[in-house]
């Protein structure tokens, strides 16, 4: 039995001959030199363990939680899938250039690099321990070798949960020491882990590496061959390839497939230290790019680097052009160059990034749909929703706010609601049938939604920064998202980056002391949920058959894992993380409370009072609880369900010194 990862890993494992536009990332490693490649010591050809060791100073490598610890996935054998003794993630401590580092390498050959409970817990625990080192004066940095299709669908909801925890842990360490991502290929970095890549301090890629939220095959199967032809290799590399990602600022350094070159690039990136502002915080650049592009007529991939450079807001444009004499080298990869230009006006370095979201009242007709769905839709997940289907997100945010809602963009609505003595900011992603992004009209989280969420959350944090921490406003993600947007223009412009911006904003709010709460009222699927809800410190869900929380909708999950839907449903009865039932999800240790309501589609006055009381109580708990996601492993449910995660944290902590 084999299984594929979340993304289209069946695409070729080498890019086609380079036909992209002249890029600004010279020296060009694809010059027609036929001899040099033979003299190289290939990094791509190494398995994860050898890659990790190859980056470290000789004799310093020490593996933690290795094969002989035998902490396997507890979920695979029960599904007749052969486990691996290290669950596909290799954690090696050592030194690079005499600096303490931990290398975390994902093995692409095992289950397509899919992240399950154990492999995800290994990454999270290693990053957290590195952060702890830093707080104790040891400047341990992290190097992530990212070859992954994203969430391992055989562990669905626990995979999704661990990817959210990985993102949170990257953010925690990134503030103290660099977290350098390397995407060498041949698999690439896709799915939820592309969001983690978007959070890294710096990203190093080869031209064989690929980076994107949705792989070509996933987009083709979700949206059709006209949207993305997964057999068009030139297209794939023109969009996802390392050359393009580096030329468009979504990665920082392009290297050849050579061990020494990768090692020295990592070492130089570590040397540049922690920047003042990380990529996922530079939302002004993302806004400028989105404003410069007409999604109905997207640019040719080859034209994107120039378009992006012209669109960049004042601060970052100055940086990109800072080294006119070195135009062949991306300015932001030049060693020693600071992330913020010296001539940027203080406090305005990000230009439009600091602009407040454009609030506007939502016209009454923004709700394009009746609040109640067809009865036959009950009891099964809503796979795709057209404009004639309900938005529970909108129904609930309106009900909780007494009708008064505003919007950042038509698909992201906000409201302020009193929870006890607190004024809380509510956010929901809702359908926008008029969206120029045709793959993001049914409530999916796309480029525009990721940016709007990031801006809206950041605005609350910025406004409250002067308040005592206990008075900072609660932020409530009202969740009803069918998925992330599966589309070509989304991948071209970097939807993973837009989602990383949203994840960054939510997690930053949580660590700044804002109670961040997810209220799941409908579907909470995949990347959409990762961007909007998964970083919440407290999670509440309606106890309703149409509340569906999962890594992927049922039909696609069946396709990817090569099972029938009936087989999947049978497995889900035995294996809680696979289940689409909210009651089973609540047993995974992530859920604070399941809420009984009378009418989940059109909430009654009593429903609103009950949910508001639950939100108020959750905000209180958040104020007194940890600001990271660590208590997801200590809840009573987690003590049972996440025993393997707990074992990883204990073993890695014991072996760390």
């Amino acid at each position, binding site marked *: 039995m084999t299984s594929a990862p979340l993304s289209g890993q069946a695409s070729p494992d080498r890019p086609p001959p380079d036909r992209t536009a002249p890029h600004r990332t010279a020296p060009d490693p694809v010059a027609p030199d036929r001899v040099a490649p033979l003299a190289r010591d290939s990094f791509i050809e190494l398995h994860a363990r050898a890659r990790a060791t190859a980056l470290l100073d000789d004799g310093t490598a020490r593996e933690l939680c290795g*094969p002989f610890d035998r902490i396997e996935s507890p979920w695979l*054998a029960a599904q007749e899938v*052969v*486990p691996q003794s290290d669950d596909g993630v290799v954690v090696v401590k050592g030194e690079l250039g005499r600096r303490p580092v931990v290398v975390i390498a994902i093995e692409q*050959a*095992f289950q397509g690099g899919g992240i399950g409970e154990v492999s995800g817990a290994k990454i999270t625990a290693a990053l957290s321990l590195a952060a702890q080192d830093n707080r104790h004066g040891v400047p341990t940095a992290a190097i992530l070798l990212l070859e992954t299709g994203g969430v391992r669908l055989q562990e669905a909801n626990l995979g999704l949960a661990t990817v959210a925890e990985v993102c949170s842990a990257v953010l925690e360490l990134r503030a103290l020491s660099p977290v350098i991502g390397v995407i060498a290929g041949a698999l690439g970095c896709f799915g939820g882990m592309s969001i983690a890549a978007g959070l890294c301090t710096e990203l190093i890629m080869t031209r064989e590496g690929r980076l994107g939220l949705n792989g070509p095959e996933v987009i083709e199967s979700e949206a059709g061959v006209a949207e993305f032809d997964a057999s068009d290799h030139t297209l794939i590399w023109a969009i996802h390839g390392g050359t393009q990602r580096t030329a468009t600022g979504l990665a920082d350094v392009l290297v050849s497939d050579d061990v020494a070159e990768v090692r020295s690039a990592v070492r130089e990136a570590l040397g540049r230290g922690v920047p003042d502002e990380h990529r996922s915080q530079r939302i002004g650049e993302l806004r400028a790019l989105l404003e410069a592009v007409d999604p109905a007529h997207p640019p040719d991939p080859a034209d994107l680097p120039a378009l992006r450079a012209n669109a960049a807001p004042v601060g970052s444009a100055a940086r990109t052009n800072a080294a006119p004499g070195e135009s062949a080298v991306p300015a932001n990869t030049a060693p020693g160059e600071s992330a913020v230009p010296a001539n940027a006006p203080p406090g305005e370095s990000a230009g439009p990034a600091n602009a407040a979201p454009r609030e506007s009242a939502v016209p009454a007709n923004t709700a394009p749909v009746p609040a109640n769905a067809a009865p036959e839709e009950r009891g099964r997940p809503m796979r795709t929703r057209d404009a004639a289907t309900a938005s529970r997100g909108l129904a609930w945010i309106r009900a909780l706010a007494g009708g008064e809602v505003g919007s950042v963009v038509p698909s992201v609505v906000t409201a302020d609601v009193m929870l006890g003595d607190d004024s809380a900011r509510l956010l929901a992603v809702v359908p926008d049938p008029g969206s120029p992004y045709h793959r993001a009209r049914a409530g999916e989280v796309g480029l525009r939604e990721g940016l709007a969420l990031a801006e809206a959350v950041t605005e609350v944090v910025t406004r409250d920064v002067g308040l005592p921490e206990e008075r900072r406003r609660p932020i409530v993600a009202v969740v009803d998202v069918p998925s992330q947007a599966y589309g070509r223009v989304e991948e071209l412009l970097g939807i993973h980056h837009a989602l990383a911006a949203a994840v960054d904003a939510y997690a930053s709010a949580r660590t700044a002391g804002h109670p961040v709460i997810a209220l799941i009222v409908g579907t909470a699927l995949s990347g959409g949920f990762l961007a909007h809800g998964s970083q919440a410190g407290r999670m509440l869900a309606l106890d309703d058959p149409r509340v569906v929380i999962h890594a992927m909708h049922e039909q696609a999950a069946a396709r990817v894992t090569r099972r029938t839907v009936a087989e999947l449903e049978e497995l889900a009865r035995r294996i809680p993380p696979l289940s689409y039932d909210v009651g089973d999800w609540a047993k995974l240790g992530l859920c604070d409370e399941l809420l009984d309501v009378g009418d989940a589609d059109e909430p009654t006055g009593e429903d609103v009072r009950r949910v508001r009381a639950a939100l108020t109580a959750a905000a209180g708990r958040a104020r007194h609880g940890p600001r990271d996601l660590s208590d997801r492993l200590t809840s009573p449910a987690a003590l049972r369900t996440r025993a393997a995660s707990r074992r990883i944290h204990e073993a890695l902590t014991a072996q760390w010194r």
Partner: protein
Amino acid sequence: MQTLNYQFPADREPARRAHVGVVGSGDLEILMTPEASGGARVRVRTSVDGFDTVWRTVLERFFARHRVGGSFELNDFGATPGVVTLRLRQVIQEGGI
């Protein structure tokens, strides 16, 4: 997935434990641990059901030739007999045989 268990006589012990391979398509990982028992204990977990006889033949031949003892854990993802033998030779070599 099928789990198969075998025992073979042995008169050589590896000097140290060793690990090779990955559970990837057409490959397998092997964990070898020295044991005081004197024989070889082999546990195979394979993704391909129904090849019990082939496994027995491949393992019998290997352990008859090398007479290496210890615990051998094989996690297989569809490796051919040639790859299995190669990985077994690699793991005992890394184990100091």
